[in-house]
């Protein structure tokens, strides 16, 4: 049985405010006047809000008929009635869930758990997690009088947009799943996102933070808000060395000396300590421990639950969701976990299966962020051989830029034992260069110059086929279309 480190260490001492943090504090305490979540709004209901609600609902209805996005109705409502969320009356608590990875799963799980326990919940699971999409969700679910009559509003929010949302509504709880390297065109590095989140710190909000993440832990620096920590204990999949392609906390964020890890879960998420200044994993209030992968169960704060989806990040999501539900709804852990066990992650959407050339073919949808791709790599390497991996390598999403730097932050080195690799897409040669640097045996690698050649490439391979793709975001990608024909 694995050794469990239940107590991650001691609480950090209060750290003096830096100049920058003082600025944040000044911002928080000054105008604009915030509307306290959970209380009746101070703003009066205006005709503009009524019109905005009506227009938003009509546009949303039309949008659904023609399959359009969910952000536009909210965006237009915001033009009709500036700051509409500020004018809403929330009869229940507002929970915001943000972070790099896992926010959709966690917010859906929180919603499921609360509903299973008899609470009314509204959420924005149907669409955009930016201000327009959230506005659409709330205006669709409020009364025409502007009242949000739900016990909980569980809102997944893009990590860069939280600071704008809190200008209109003060959340009761903000959960940050993790802060990892993601979409460098937008975010540059996790610390830039960290700064954006810190700009949105509001008095009275309780923060639920990942104790194993030294980057998002910095949200707690210099603030007076209550903080609840969640963590995952050491388990048989924990590693002494970072096996991911990136580690954004090789050095201590406070003093720049080397950060030591007792173990890693993935990327920079693990149990850490700086020997120079004492920065370390805080003691967790909610911790997943005694993880028994073979038996399919683990404990959260000594209460047993099933492992319904066998992935470390999913266990983190479960612990985080439990932390929210116990804290915000006052539910006992037994009830929370009983409901969590019936949550459907929607595996079929992320791991769709096809039959290609009479062989089992599994599509693995990834985001263009290193942590997400590392998890997909791990998914493939965990499978029994022989395996054929198709990597679709295209330009950057949205921008079509050709830098594809993110592939150098992925640990493709872990693919060395995969028997066959086929690369296809606009950046196929760049991927081949990356695999060569990763010391993949290039005799196992085929570069497929045209989608039509996929059949002949695959005929030279054997075993189950795995397709690492992000092509749901790329209209010009014909690879999946071609595969479905085979």
């Amino acid at each position, binding site marked *: 049985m694995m050794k469990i480190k239940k107590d991650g260490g001691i609480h950090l001492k209060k750290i003096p405010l830096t100049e920058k943090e003082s600025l944040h504090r000044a911002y928080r305490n000054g105008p604009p006047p915030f509307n306290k979540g959970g209380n009746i709004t101070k703003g009066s209901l205006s005709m503009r809000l009524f019109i905005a609600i009506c227009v938003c609902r009509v546009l949303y209805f039309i949008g659904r008929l023609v399959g359009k996005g969910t952000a536009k109705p909210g965006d237009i409502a915001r033009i009709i009635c500036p700051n509409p969320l500020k004018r809403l009356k929330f009869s229940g608590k507002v929970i915001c869930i943000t972070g790099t990875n896992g926010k959709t799963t966690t917010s859906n799980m929180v919603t499921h758990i609360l509903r299973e326990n008899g609470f009314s919940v509204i959420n924005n699971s149907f669409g955009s997690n930016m201000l327009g999409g959230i506005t659409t969700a709330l205006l669709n679910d409020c009364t025409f009088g502007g009242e949000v009559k739900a016990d909980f509003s569980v809102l997944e929010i893009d990590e860069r947009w939280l600071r704008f949302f809190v200008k209109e509504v003060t959340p009761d709880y903000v959960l940050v799943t993790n802060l990892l390297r993601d979409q460098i065109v937008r975010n540059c590095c996790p610390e830039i996102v960290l700064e954006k989140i810190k700009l949105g710190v509001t008095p009275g909000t309780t923060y639920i933070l990942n104790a194993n993440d030294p980057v998002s832990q910095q949200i707690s620096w210099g603030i007076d808000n209550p903080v609840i920590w969640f963590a995952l204990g050491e388990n048989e999949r924990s590693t002494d060395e970072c096996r991911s392609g990136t580690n954004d906390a*090789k050095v201590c964020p406070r003093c*720049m000396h080397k950060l030591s890890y007792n173990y890693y879960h993935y990327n920079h998420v693990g149990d850490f300590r700086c020997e120079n200044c004492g920065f370390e994993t805080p003691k967790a209030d909610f911790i997943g421990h005694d993880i028994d992968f073979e038996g399919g169960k683990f404990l959260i704060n000594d209460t047993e639950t099933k492992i319904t989806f066998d992935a470390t990040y999913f266990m983190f999501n479960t612990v985080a969701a439990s932390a929210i539900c116990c804290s915000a709804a006052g539910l006992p852990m037994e009830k929370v976990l009983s409901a969590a066990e019936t949550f459907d992650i929607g595996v079929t959407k992320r791991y769709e299966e096809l039959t290609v050339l009479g062989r089992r073919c599994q599509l693995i949808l990834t985001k263009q962020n290193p942590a997400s791709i590392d998890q997909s790599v791990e998914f493939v390497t965990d499978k029994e051989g022989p395996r054929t991996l198709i990597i679709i390598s295209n330009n950057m999403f949205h921008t079509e*830029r*050709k830098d594809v730097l993110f592939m*150098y932050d992925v640990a493709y080195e872990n693919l060395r034992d995969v028997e066959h690799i086929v690369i296809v897409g606009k950046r196929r040669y760049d991927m081949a*260069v990356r695999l060569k*640097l990763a010391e993949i045996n290039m005799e196992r690698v085929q570069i497929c110059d045209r989608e039509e050649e996929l059949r002949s490439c695959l005929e030279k391979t054997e075993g189950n086929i795995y397709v690492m793709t992000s092509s749901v975001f790329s209209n010009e990608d014909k690879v999946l279309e071609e595969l479905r024909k085979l």
Partner: protein
Amino acid sequence: MKTVKILNLYGEALDLNGDGKNVSAFEKRIAEMGYESVTDTLGVGDEIDFSEYDIVFLTHGKPHNVSALSADFIKYKDSIINYIESGKTFVVTGSSNMLFGKSFSMLDGKTYEGIGLFDCTAEEFDSLYVSDAVLVPEFAPEEKMFGTYYRCESVKYNTPNENRLFRVLKADSGKGSVGEGEGCRIKNLFATWCLGPVLVRNPLMMKEVLHCVLGEDYRETDFSLEEKAVKMIIEELI
């Protein structure tokens, strides 16, 4: 057997967007040529003797980390300048260039000192300049390279940059853009605002750096895959 000593300076604090892979790729080329290499990754808290090394890498990092390291870097000002003056090879990518200027100021309002080798100052801004670029290296003016910029710093030269490393053939305009000339070459110092795996993806620059380090000991290795990949990008861009 010849052994090449490599210093990956602040390699643990400055490794954003695959910049550290430049060091790995360099090590592999050295091995392919039949030589050995030893890499030291040193940072704050270590005592560094630059004269021990054949090549130093100082790669792109997070703005916060670059500013936090400046006080430590300044300690080595004379050693670094002597190292460069002696003709040894130094490769600098991305935001670490700020450490070589006169000073740089960050969004927190603080100004940090550089070692002043480049007659420029930099200022962090609250957005990101992103561009693919086609570059013509001054060391091979008939050839082209591919570069990538992600900058949240604008750079102002006090005197014209006469030691540029690249002529910029194509790049996007906007706040933070690099202008017509980019980077700096002083003896065997290669400093570019391009970031990421610059050497991995540009055989031209990798060969030039290898030549500088190895001199007559340079041996040919197979760059055909890398050349095909970069050629494809450049053709798409121009």
